[in-house]
């Protein structure tokens, strides 16, 4: 176990390094002068002397590899710099907004499981029936719908026509009322993916011999499916939660903007509008690092659950 863990962590290091290099390269390729951008305020273009001074002070004149090492050195210590716009610490902004995103993502995850697991089981058990066809068509439709459009359809119906839910916003602290529509939007998109996966995992388990044995014993169908097949079919579905989480995060970028939900997607998009480079770079690095760690945890979890990997 320890050897496995150490090996995985060692493999992670070059990837983390490359992740930081990709983030920095994108920043470095950006046209325009960051010093000028930083000093440009509502009063118009800045004083060239001040720009020059800042370039010197902030080291924007140094060669890129020096700038990169300086930036990486700080980033490793958790110092992602300061926002060009608000002057806040980037890490604080990123962490706060990620907390809102996490709340939304967890709610969506619950919604997606509530829809997709029963639907996937039903489709697998009644394979090639009308229900199966309908469910799989719906799930295909679900992966084809742009989530910002789905968001607006829900807004048009529930917030405007029926007027039972708020159009957008976060409320006092992200209360349930404001969370329903964004969480349902993301949950439905994720359910489309998960229900297909649930169906195929269930089909695979149902074709195994021990299921035949259970049936031969004369167990009722519901018991075979729910007690014998489901636990095994759920295992891969749960271990792809990481994948699911990626899917939700990807969706959150646009959906948060539509619903003015103060999450990391919203933060990223607004910092792009404002050309707030440190925040863009900080969010990107934060998400990628988080992801690599999450994947590592999933691998470890899988290793723990699956004894066959331990040789």
């Amino acid at each position, binding site marked *: 176990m320890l050897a496995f863990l150490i090996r995985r962590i060692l493999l992670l290091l070059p990837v983390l390094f490359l992740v930081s290099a990709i983030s920095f390269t994108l920043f470095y390729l950006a046209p325009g002068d960051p010093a000028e951008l930083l000093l440009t305020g509502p009063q118009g273009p800045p004083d060239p002397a001040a720009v020059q001074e800042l370039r010197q002070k902030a080291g924007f004149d140094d060669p890129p590899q020096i700038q990169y090492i300086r930036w990486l050195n700080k980033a490793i210590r958790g110092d992602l710099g300061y926002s060009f716009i608000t002057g806040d610490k980037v890490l604080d902004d990123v962490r706060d907004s990620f907390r809102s995103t996490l709340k939304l993502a967890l709610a969506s995850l619950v919604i997606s499981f509530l829809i997709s697991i029963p639907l996937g089981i039903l489709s697998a058990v009644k394979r090639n029936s009308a229900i199966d066809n309908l469910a799989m068509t719906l799930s295909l439709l679900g992966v084809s719908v742009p989530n910002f459009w789905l968001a607006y359809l829900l807004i048009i119906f529930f917030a405007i026509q029926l007027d039972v839910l708020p159009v957008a916003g976060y409320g006092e602290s992200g209360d349930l009322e404001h969370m329903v529509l964004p969480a349902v939007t993301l949950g439905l998109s994720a359910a489309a993916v998960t229900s297909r996966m649930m169906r195929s995992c269930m089909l695979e388990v149902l074709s195994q011999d021990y299921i035949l044995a259970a049936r031969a014993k004369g167990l009722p169908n519901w018991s075979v499916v729910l007690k014998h097949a489901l636990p095994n079919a759920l295992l891969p579905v749960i271990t792809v939660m990481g994948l699911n989480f990626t899917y939700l995060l990807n969706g959150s970028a646009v959906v948060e903007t539509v619903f003015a939900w103060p999450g990391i997607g919203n933060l*990223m998009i607004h910092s792009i509008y404002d050309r707030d480079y440190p925040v863009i770079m900080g969010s990107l690095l934060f998400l990628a690092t988080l992801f690599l760690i999450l994947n590592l945890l999933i691998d470890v979890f899988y290793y723990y659950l699956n004894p066959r990997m331990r040789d």
Partner: protein
Amino acid sequence: MRTWIAFLIIAGLILAAIFAEQLSPNDPDTANLSQRLKAPCWDYPLGTDHLGRCILSRIIFGIRMSLFIGGSVVLFSAILGIILGSAAGYFGGILDEAIMRVVDAFLAFPSIFLALAAIGFLGSGMINLMLSLILVEWTGYARLVRSIILSLRGKEFLEAAASLGASDFYIMRRHILPIVLPQVLVMATLGIGYAILDSTSLSFLGLGIQPPTPEWGSMMNDARPFVRADPLMMIFPGIAITSSVLAFNLAGEWLREQVDPRSDAPQEI
């Protein structure tokens, strides 16, 4: 049946893109403020937008942009992925290790955030939009091609070719590429759908194709302030996106079944 619908939609899209001038009832760019936010009628079958432009005509002209972006993103991603994936799989060793670590690094970013950051730094517009999507898409092809080649390692027909003195390039071109291409085609067909989805999302955020160019995502961005007054302006372009993406998804699934009849595998995202 579903496959037929899919290919019908795709054929329809291609034809409509070619004959956009003939099919559109109005000019997509002509603004007419006296006709703004109109409901569907004879002159404007899907109504008009906030500047009085014909929504149907803009949707028809928007097909060109979506197909062009979807097609080119997939083409360039596939070429890049095939080159790097086959180099990694065929030569192995340190080259494989290096290429795959780069792939891992690209995959560590949630895809839309990487595309967003690329646009954030490079600026919006069509070329940067396509570049940012290629940055996200190529890894899938590289991994696919590499894994196919690894599964072919040590096969007799390759060893036979090598023992006859065939060069690496010849073996790749004549013996490996024909095995790789069908599966790449499956991924590419599904990929067009995803590229349309992502590019319209970015244009919807105002970070992709800029107005006044008729494009589905940016039409929906235009519709945001008017969603209360004229929800149809938001609804119609969304139908166009959904049906095209659905068509490419269905076509991709059908192709997958042709290439690998046993596959009932979960769909990769």
